[in-house]
Structures are given as structure tokens and as C-alpha cells.
């Protein structure tokens, strides 16, 4: 039982990070038909901006959070205006945009490597504070930070998507871009908000990943495939699905360590991805239509 609770705490921590990454990836995929392989490197950039603010400049962690969010959201917007919008105007296909995003991922990841080097980095957080809840169940200060931050933001985003007009329009666009456009939705505005949301959530995921593990130029790239798995699990384009998919995936990966070697837990995540795509490609929450 204690082992189950401990792995659950681990799973909620990594699952929260996956969920933050997955919401943006899924919305961009659904709304812009862009399978963004550079999304992982957005996450990495968030981590390094936080590192620059928190460690290099010695400012508080809260400032680092805000700086990372703003920087990655700005990057999302700049890339939309310089690359994605012009490419869409020229009628680029899904695979063409996908391959382009792979090139972009190479560029971002290696510019980060160029700027900050390949060494492991950590943020200025208390690495050693551990509390025993009861029995052998423990939680670290880092896990509390990650779970609480991710939890609060995820609830806010879910509420935003459900209640506000912009949230509803985003979901409508992800459902059917053309239908939303003929219904009079200002799609340009929604696209901008989508990138702001996707970028800031990726930035946040990057800061939390830098707190939870160590930061290298590959941090986001290694997170990308589990995040894809979370997106697929929740149904592509479905933001709630991505949220639940991320947390589910984190839990499944950590629970699996009770039965197989912990070094296999990434493979378990990929196995879930493949099985869902084969058995239920519309995801657990999606409806069978455009698959």
C-alpha cells in the first residue's frame, strides 16, 4: 500500500508536467493541424530561461516562472507569424509542416546547447527536504511544488476552456476549423491565443521539469514522446483529454515500476501510446470520426 501511494505521488508529479505539455501540443495539433515536434524544445527553453533568471541572475523562483512563461509564449507567437502562418497561406500539407517542425526542433535544441552547454543544471530549490506522511509514505518539497503548481494551473486552464468565450472558441476550432470560421469566429485571434496558451504552458512545464529532474538541452525532447502519448490517449485536439491523458500516463508509468524494472517505465508509456493508437485511435475521450 505504501509503495502504491509513493508511486502515485511520483506519478502525479510527472503526470502534471506531461499534462501541461500535452494541452498545448493537442490544441495546436487540433486547431492548426501542426504536429509540432519542436514543442519539447519549447519546454526545454522554458527551463533554461528559468535557470538564467533564478540561478545566473539570482532572482526569486516566482520571477523565473513568470519569465519562462512569457519567453516561451513570445516564441510561440513569433514562430506563428514568421513560419506557420506563411506556410499555411501557401497551402502546406500536414507532413510538410511536421517535417519543418523537426528542423525547427534541431535548431532550437542546438541553439540552447550553444548558449548554455550540455552540463546538467538545477534550479535554486531545496533538493533535500522530505516529509514522511505516514508509514513509509514520503513526499519531497520538490514534489509538493510540482503537484501544487501543476494542479492549480491545470484547474485554471480547464475552467478557462469551459467557461470563457475564448476557451469555448478554441475547443470549437479544434473540433472543426471551417465550421467555426463560417459561424463568424475570428479565427486569427483564436490562433494567437492558442499559441499564447500553448507556449506559456510549455514554459511552465519546462520550469517544473527543471525543478523535478535536472535540466539538459535534451530535457524537453525526452518529454516529447510521453507527451505525444498523453495527447493520443486523450484524443488529438481534445484539451481536457490531454490533461487527463497526461496525468493517467504519469500514473501508469510510475505504477508499472511495482511490476517491472523502473528503467522500463518510458517503454511502458510508449507501449500505451501504440496500443491506444491501434485499438482506439480517437483516444479515450474522442468520438470516432476523423481518424
Amino acid at each position: 500500500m505504501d509503495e502504491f501511494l509513493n508511486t502515485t505521488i511520483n506519478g502525479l508529479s510527472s503526470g502534471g508536467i506531461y499534462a501541461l505539455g500535452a494541452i498545448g501540443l493537442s490544441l495546436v495539433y487540433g486547431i492548426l493541424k501542426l504536429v509540432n515536434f519542436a514543442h519539447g524544445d519549447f519546454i526545454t527553453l522554458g527551463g533554461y530561461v528559468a535557470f538564467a533568471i533564478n540561478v545566473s541572475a539570482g532572482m526569486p523562483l516566482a520571477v523565473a516562472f513568470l519569465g519562462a512563461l512569457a519567453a516561451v509564449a513570445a516564441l510561440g507567437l513569433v514562430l506563428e507569424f514568421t513560419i506557420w502562418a506563411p506556410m499555411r497561406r501557401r497551402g502546406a500539407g500536414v507532413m510538410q509542416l511536421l517535417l519543418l517542425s523537426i528542423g525547427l526542433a534541431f535548431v532550437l535544441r542546438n541553439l540552447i546547447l550553444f548558449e548554455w552547454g550540455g552540463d546538467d543544471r538545477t534550479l535554486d530549490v531545496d533538493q533535500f527536504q522530505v516529509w514522511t506522511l505516514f508509514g513509509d509514505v514520503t513526499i519531497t518539497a520538490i514534489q509538493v511544488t510540482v503537484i501544487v503548481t501543476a494542479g492549480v494551473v491545470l484547474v485554471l486552464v480547464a475552467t478557462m476552456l469551459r467557461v470563457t468565450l475564448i476557451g469555448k472558441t478554441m475547443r470549437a476550432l479544434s473540433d472543426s476549423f471551417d465550421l467555426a470560421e463560417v459561424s463568424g469566429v475570428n479565427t486569427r485571434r483564436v490562433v494567437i491565443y492558442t499559441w499564447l496558451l500553448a507556449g506559456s504552458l510549455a514554459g511552465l512545464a519546462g520550469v517544473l521539469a527543471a525543478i523535478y529532474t535536472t535540466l539538459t538541452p535534451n530535457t524537453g525532447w525526452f518529454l516529447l514522446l510521453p507527451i505525444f502519448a498523453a495527447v493520443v490517449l486523450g484524443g488529438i485536439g481534445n484539451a481536457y483529454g490531454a490533461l487527463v491523458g497526461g496525468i493517467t500516463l504519469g500514473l501508469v508509468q510510475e505504477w508499472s515500476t511495482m511490476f517491472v524494472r523502473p528503467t522500463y517505465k518510458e517503454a511502458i508509456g510508449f507501449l500505451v501510446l501504440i496500443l491506444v493508437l491501434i485499438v482506439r485511435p480517437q483516444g479515450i475521450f474522442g468520438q470516432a470520426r476523423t481518424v
Partner: protein
Amino acid sequence: MDPLLAFGFWAFVLTFAGIYATFVLGLQLEVGDTGLINFGHVAFMAIGAYTMGLLVTNDVTIWVAIPLAVAAAAAGGLLLGLPTLRLRADYFAITTIAAGEILRITIQNEEGTTGGTQGLRSASGPWRDANNQILDFFEGIGVELDRRVPLLVIVWLTAVLVGLLLVYLARSPWRRVLRAVRENEEAAAAAGKPVFSYKLQALAFGSAIAGLAGVLYTLFSTTLFPENFEPIFTFVGFAILILGGIGSYFGVVVGSIVIAFIVSGTRFLDFPLDSDKVAALRFVVIGLIIMGMMAFRPQGLFGKKEELYLDD
């Protein structure tokens, strides 16, 4: 750099390029001819390399090990294709990369068999002996060869033979059906072609070629490590494919040489920067090549625009 060292260096770069050329020819058959975006191609190279390595280190002669390694890679292609080839193109792409990672993580974890992160050692031992015999033979007839030359010749001979086989097949009814599948799956099916079976054949054949590249890689490197088979290897393959041109076999050869030059050939240039930073810049250049080609010339240097199908 003195000339002898320089020769060894360029032999290394060109051997690497030749292995990549074979690898990407398999990718070309899948992506260019059939329209299958396979991001897990490196997994089949890993199957070829590790099958070869494990057989050879267990005293199987290389003449038995090579066909078995290629067959194992082809079987892997069939195994992956059966459940996944019905998926949409983007889903298929994500599935293949996930499958490749599962294989790599398994190789990394089963260190009892594969050596894990410590690597699979002395897989190239039998080749070193054979290489010495070849060198001795040439010395016997009065020709002094650098010890890297035989492999360089074998690697490029393989790439050229595979390329010629594909060009020969390009004139066959088989490849005409593949292209029909790529351009309009429904129409091919309506014309009574078993589309799924053709896709499966292309994936198995492409995987076999990747397996062959894996065999060459085993001869080339003294130790096999799981991290040699990370997804980045496939993506560099895609950079070659995109630069040379999707659909062009000749483009693969040119692309391999250019990209191998950027990745390892630029080491002789003296940059006033740390080696880490130079390594990063090399991959920035590769990323920019992919982006620029996709934005401005998606058919690559030698591809034909009317033959390019990237719209899913």
C-alpha cells in the same frame, strides 16, 4: 593535418556517408515511393546491427550472420507493419518512433544479452581478421592499402548495389503499384490492388535495407551502444532525404555525402570556439537545411515537385 592522417579522416567520413546512404535508400523506398513516413527506421538498423553482433560474438561466421541479420530486420518490419499500417500518416509516424524507442530501451535494459549501456564488444572482431587478410593479399601483389580502404569500398559497393536494385525495381510493375498507393490509395484499391499488402512489402523491404546498413555499422564500429540508435539518427536520415529530394535515389547519395560532411567532415576546420559549441552549430545547420527545404523547395535538390505527396 598531415596527408596520411587526412586520408584516414576522409575515409572515416566517407564510410560513414556510405552507411547513411544505404540506410536512407531504405527510407526512400518507404517515404518517397510508398508515402510511409517511418520515424522508427533506425530501429531496423539496430535489429540488423545487434543480430549481426550477437551472432558473430557467439561464433557464427559472418556469411551466415549477415543474411540472418537482414532477415531479422525485414521480419521486424512485418511485425510493426501488420498492426500499424492501417493508421493515418501522422499516427503511423508517431507509432514508429515509439516502437523504435521501446526497442532501444529494451536493448539498454537487457544487459545480460546485449551488454546494455556498456555496449556489445568485439562484434567487429571477425571483420578485423578478414580485413587483415585482404590487406595481406594486396600487399602480396605489391599494393600497400590503408586499413580503412576495404570497408570504404564494401560500404559504397553495397550502397551502389542497393541503389541499382531500386532503380531496376523502379521500372517494374511492383514499384508502379507502390507509387499508385502513394498518390491515391483509394484509386489503387479500386483498381483491385491489395494496397495493404504492398505497403507491408515496402516496409519489410525498406527495413531489410536498414538491417543491411546495421550490418555495415557493426563492421564499422568496434562496440555497439544502444545510444547509437536514438531517434536522432533517423531524423538526420530525413535531413539527407529532404536535401537530396524525396523520390530521388541519386539525391540520397548526394545528400549523404553533404550531411556526413557537415556532421563529421567539418572537424578539420579550426573554429575559434569550444568543440561543444561547434557541435551544436553543426546541428543548427542541419535543422536550417530541413526548414529551408521544406519551406522553399520541398522536393529537395533532385526530386520532382509533381511527385511530391506530403498532404497526408
